[in-house]
Structures are given as C-alpha cells and as structure tokens.
C-alpha cells in the first residue's frame, strides 16, 4: 500500500546550462503572451477614459 512516487531521491541538481534553457524556453512562450496582454490592456484602457 505504500506510495512509491513521493520517495526522496538524490538526483544531482540541474546544471547551469539547463537554467539557461529554462530562461530561453520561458522567453519563447512569454514574449507572445506579453504581446497579447499588452494589446488587451490597450483595448481595455478605453473603459477608463
């Protein structure tokens, strides 16, 4: 009945290069999302004029 998913493991920590990849991946998805949000704000600004 014991759970085997949540057992602590002794994985090595992620490398510096992997953090660079994380940053690149977030930039790739973040830029279009921020563009969309900026356009939404521009439209929504009309409501408060």
């Amino acid at each position, binding site marked *: 009945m014991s759970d085997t998913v949540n*057992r602590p493991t002794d994985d090595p920590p992620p490398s510096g290069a992997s953090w660079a990849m994380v940053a690149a991946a977030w930039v790739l998805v973040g830029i279009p999302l921020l563009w969309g949000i900026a356009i939404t704000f521009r439209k929504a600004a009309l409501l408060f004029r």
Partner: protein
Amino acid sequence: MAGLLDKERIIAPPGFNRWLVPPAALAIHLSIGMAYGFSVFWLPLSRLLGKAQGLDGSLACPADLGFVGEVLSTSCDWKISTLGWMYTLFFVFLGSSAAIFGGWLERVGPRRAGVVAAFCWAGGFFISALGIHLHQILLLWAGSGIIGGCGLGLGYISPVSTLIKWFPDRRGMATGMAIMGFGGGALIGSPLADVLMKHFATATTTGVFETFLAMGTLYFIAMLCGAFGYRIPRADWSPPGWTPRASQSAMVTTRHVHVNEATRTPQFWLLWGVLCLNVSAGIGVIGMASPMIQEVFGGRLIGGAGALAELSTEQKAQIATIGAAFAALLSFFNIIGRFGWASLSDLIGRKRTYFIFFLLGTLLYSAAPAAGRSGSIALFAAIFCTILTMYGGGFATIPAYLADMFGTQFVGAIHGRLLTAWSTAGVLGPVLVNYIREYQIRQGVPNAQAYNTTLYILAGLLVAGFLCNLLVRPVAERHFMTDSELAAARTGAKLK
C-alpha cells in the same frame, strides 16, 4: 518515428530541470487556447462571397432556402449563427475526447498525445482552409469543430498528469501555469489573426483563407515543440530535499485510484458538480458581459446620459467599443485567476479555495445589480473582474484537487473524464442566461434590468456548487489500488 514518441523515451535523466516542462505545456495550451478567440473569424467568414463580388456586406441566401439548403449552398454567404456552431462543437468534442482518450494518454505518455493534438488542431485549420476555398461549411465544422475539438481535448489534458508528477510540492501552481495558457491563447491568437487577415486581404478577398493556413502552420510548429519538450519523471523521483508532510490533510492522499474506479466514487461526481456549476455561472457572465455593461450604463459610458436605446448610431458604436474593452479586461483577469488561485490553493488547500469561489462568487453575483444601480462603472467592472478570476481559478485548481483526492497515477485520465462537466456547462450556462433574459423581456422587464434575475440565478448555481464542495470527503479505502495493481499500471499494462 514511433520510438521518438514512446513513453519510455521521454523519462527524464538525472539532473533534468523540471522548470523546462511548464513552458512546453504552455506552448500547447497557448496554441489550443485560440479556440476562445475564433469569433474574430466570424465577420470575415460571413462576407467571403459578398466581398468577392464587390459588395459592402454579405451575399445573403434566398429567404426560402432552409437550414439544410444554407448548409449545403456554395453560392451564398454563411450566417454568423451558422458559423457559431463551430464554437459549440469545440467544447463538446473537447470534453468528449478528453474523457475518451484520457486513459490512452496515461498509457502512451504526454508526448504522443501532444503530437496527435498538434495534428488534430493544426489539421483542423488546414481542413477549414479547404472549406473556405470550396465555400463548404461542413468542412469547417468537421475540420476545426470536430477534429480540432479532439485536438483541444487531447492537448488540454496532455501536460496535466506530467506537471503534477514533476511538482508534487506545488501541484496547483504547476497546472495553473499550463491552464493559464489556455486562457491566454485568444489574447495572442485574436490580434494575430487580425494582423494576418489585414496583411493577406485583397480587393476581392478577406484574407481569411491564407490566415487559416498560416495559423495552422504556426500552431503545428509550436505544439510539436511543446510535445517534444515533455519529459516525465522516474516513478521514484521527487524534488530534491522534499518529502511529503507526515501531518498532511486527510484530503490529500498519497495513494492512487484507478480511472475506472474513480468514476464510481461520490467524490468524482461531487467534483464534477463543482466544476460544472462554477463554469456554468462564469460562462453565463462571459456571454453577457459586453451587452450587459452597455445596457446597464448606457450613455454614462461615454460621459453622457440616457439609456442605450435612446442614443444615436454613432454613440452606440462608441459604447460597443467600450463593451468590447470590458470583455478584453475580463479575459485578462480570467488568465490571472488561473495562475493566482491555483497557486494559492497550494497554501490554503483545494477545498478552501473552492469555498472562497462559491462564497465570494455568490456575494459578488448578488451585489452586481446594486453596483449597476449605483452608477459606479469602476465598482461594476471590479466585481466582474473578480468573478472572472474565480472562473479561471476553478479550471486551474481542479486537476490538483483531483490529484489530492485520487492520487497522481491516473490524474490525467480522471481529469479528462471530469472535463465533460465543462462541455455540459458550455451548453447550460449560455442557454440559462439567454432564456431567462428573453423570458423577462417578454414579461415587460426593461432591458437594463433584465440581467438582475439572471445574476441572482447564477448566484444560486454557486450556492449549489458550495454544497457539492461541502460534501467532498476523503475517498473510501476500498477504492484505492493495491501495490500489485499499481505496479502493473506502471509497467504499462492495459487499463481495466
């Protein structure tokens, strides 16, 4: 090629950075989230033949042509109501495919499911482009609506189980990040479609055919990148330094319920009710947000006075633009809520989070008519923005709630089955809102006040949701899998 998609192939090596998985999930959810933004195509699609013949508007069908005639006709323009069926098909097939293929996803892994989702979603765009070229609405319904809808369902659930396994310490935040993408997809897709249609338009075409091809290609690439970015943790993996808290709540299990067994528990159906009622109320508001603010505030929106019906055509156009601005603002708060509330649920627990949705939601829905009467546009907007955060939050918190109740092994498949609640709400919410409003107007209630009863009824739905949430208790012992059943499931044995 088959090896590339195998579940065994994507087990992460030691030292893999788990923060690479959320952007992969976002790439898929931001792509399929365009389903919310399809209304940007309705107007250009309804003027294809009219524009080709140099008319200002649509080339209308003969008055005596029935519904079937209009559907099969290639010589008159489609009505917006006919195109709108695509939207219904999206959400019906999203729920159905998630429910049907959830078990398959758990067996084959997220990469294969993500790749199939990419083929379906992008393929839907290409089939629809052919439908536009041949002017055959059935190809749009089948392409974007049915095949694309299946892509939506598979794409939506593909990262859920994986993210929950990578982030056992922050389940809500992890799924919130991905599901935030589904809310954000239209924020990118709608303006992008607008830019592309303007770019491709000529004197005789609306540019929508080329836009479908371009967007299908973009989404295909983005979704494949996402699917190939998925990695799953080893079965014995956990975040370095993290151990499950010994004093964890009884509402968070460390064991697992099989997907077929989960649907036999009252907890599953109570959570189905929780999602369905929260989403029905939210969809109801989204559908009426723009006309509601216009009719409630009328001329005050442009610094004047008078009801909407008393204004000039030019003033009505200005107010319609402000109504669209209000809808845009709500969509932003919808995505903020997905990340915010789901992350908060990691700290305060899922059940408490839904209690907040239902209690605060009931208060806000009930207070909205008074805010309208007070004349405060800011207060009225603030109420609906908060409501929309809780609508989004409901979607994003439910996978973590399921993982807490039923364990992580089959959470993707269980979530898939629960999404039928969304399909149901997609029909229930708008129908409820439209019928109640029409009934009141027939009874002589002024347009601006016809929303009040609707809002009180939506508040009633939230009270019912509160009761469902209240009744959720830990899953009974007999429903959990034994060690041998779990081991068989992990070695890829076929689902029962």
